[in-house]
């Protein structure tokens, strides 16, 4: 399996806080990676540096042999169109219908005018409908997004990412606002996208049990540094305590 993403010595400093402190990571195509750590450890910053929603202070992010940090605006847009992103708060346009939100995933491939007036091709619409069917949202297609439940909204978020036909999907705490059964559905769909479509997935999580259950590989981050990088099976209890701070350890496991 070839490498798709190579993060080298990535650092990010905000005014007086160092969010990332020399993170290096290499992800293979089709891998399902969970990034775990406390809030504020740098998980979100790491994810956002990959598609440059946040500009890194130093280091390199090589995606498919291209250094994302050095791209021009136009080229960055092209790279972003191949990276899906899923958010904790779904980040949908709530007043638009489900199908319109899903088709937003195609905007990266559109000319200015076509995107502005929302002119999509037949193939794109077909892809959007098929994706919705796969996620079990056919009945919700023409509903406005503010009528949906949290779990349904997140599935729309996944659909929007999938119609991008992405190489990589970045998920920032995708299940943090969901109840356990909706969370399971979302994680199953993400796992399915990885297994059936061969999409590389990086998920930020703070639930260690979920990370262990779904991921091929777990990356633990503590204070902007990598504290663990390996298979979920080898993740020892002590390492978890170290990542999350010892007091929290007992609450997280079991």
């Amino acid at each position, binding site marked *: 399996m070839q490498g798709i993403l190579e993060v080298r010595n990535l650092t990010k400093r905000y005014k007086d806080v160092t969010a990332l402190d020399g993170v290096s990571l290499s992800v293979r195509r089709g891998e399902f990676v969970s990034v775990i750590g406390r809030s504020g450890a740098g998980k979100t910053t790491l994810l956002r540096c990959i598609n440059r929603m946040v500009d890194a202070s130093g280091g390199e992010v090589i995606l498919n042999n291209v250094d994302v940090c050095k791209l021009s605006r136009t080229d960055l*847009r092209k790279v972003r169109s191949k990276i899906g992103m899923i958010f904790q708060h779904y980040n949908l*346009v709530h007043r638009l219908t489900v199908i319109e939100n899903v088709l937003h995933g195609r*905007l990266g491939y559109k000319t200015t005018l076509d995107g502005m007036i929302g002119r999509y091709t037949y193939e794109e619409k077909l892809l959007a409908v098929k994706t919705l069917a796969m996620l079990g949202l056919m009945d919700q297609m023409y509903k406005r997004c503010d009528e949906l439940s949290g779990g349904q909204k997140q599935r729309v978020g996944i659909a929007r990412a999938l119609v991008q036909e992405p190489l990589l999907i970045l998920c920032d705490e995708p299940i943090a606002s969901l109840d356990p059964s909706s969370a399971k559905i979302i994680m199953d769909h993400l796992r399915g996208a990885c297994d059936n479509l061969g999409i590389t997935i990086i998920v930020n999580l703070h639930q260690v049990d979920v990370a262990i259950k779904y991921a091929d590989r777990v990356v633990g981050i503590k204070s902007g540094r990598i504290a663990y990088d390996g298979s979920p099976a080898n993740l020892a209890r002590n390492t978890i305590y170290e990542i999350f701070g010892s007091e929290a350890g007992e609450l997280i496991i079991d």
Partner: protein
Amino acid sequence: MEDILVVERKNPPFPAAGSLAPAPRGETDQAPAPMRSPEELFRRRRVQFTLIFLLLIVVTAFASLITQFNFITSIESFPKALLWLAKNVVPNAKSLRLVPNILGKLLQTVQISIMATVIAAVLAFAMALLGAVPTRPNLMVAGVIRLIASFFRNIPVVAWALILIFSFGQSLLTGFLAIFIETFGFLVRSFIEVIDETSKSSVEALRATGARYFHTIFQAVVPSVKPMILSWMLYMVETNIRSATLVGMLTGSGIGFAFDLYYKNFNYAGAALVIISIIVVVLLIETISNIIRRLIL
């Protein structure tokens, strides 16, 4: 021996429990500052409230002393003023001849305020995009936009009318411009707040898909802000009919001019008719905009 060891291992999480004796245990780790009792907190609130109240009374008394404003006499003169109003400022049969003229002027005023609002709203939306956090091109442009808007907004509409009279004379255009400038300043600020509140997350998501700037504007910002923006525009139309009356008095146009004319000719019946017609129109516009709001929100 072993039992003691186990107990000792379990104790350390609460080492400071003894030193913070009076506070309940749950709060010890949340309140690093010395925690006061609830009674003390509420007593402090009462004292604060009383002090503010006393301060207001003192300031008021002091102000009326300086301006020689006598509260008692002003209250005493109130019934007399009302009586005078009821006797003189009522429409009579003769004043009904003025109705066509008044309606014509009123229509002019309504048109001016709607026109000024619509044109100002279009420009204000473009400016607000440059000033709002999710859509601004850079910090400096946003700062300049906010400054301009605040400059336009914070000079009262009457002052704008007086300033503009120098350059444009007493005309309909002056009245229009004064209202337009005020509305523009106000709407830029409101629209910036609407965009900041409603569009941040969806703009972020669209940018992450590789969408262009204008895609995010038309696919995320516009659908999200549409109802709020229409609501603000309706509010401005209502406000502007009121200010157009005032501005009209200064610039010699619209319904304000009619009022000024009758009033200064001691035609109080005619002036009363003007006032009643303004009230009717404002209520009408308010009702219509409430219906529209209910439909769009």
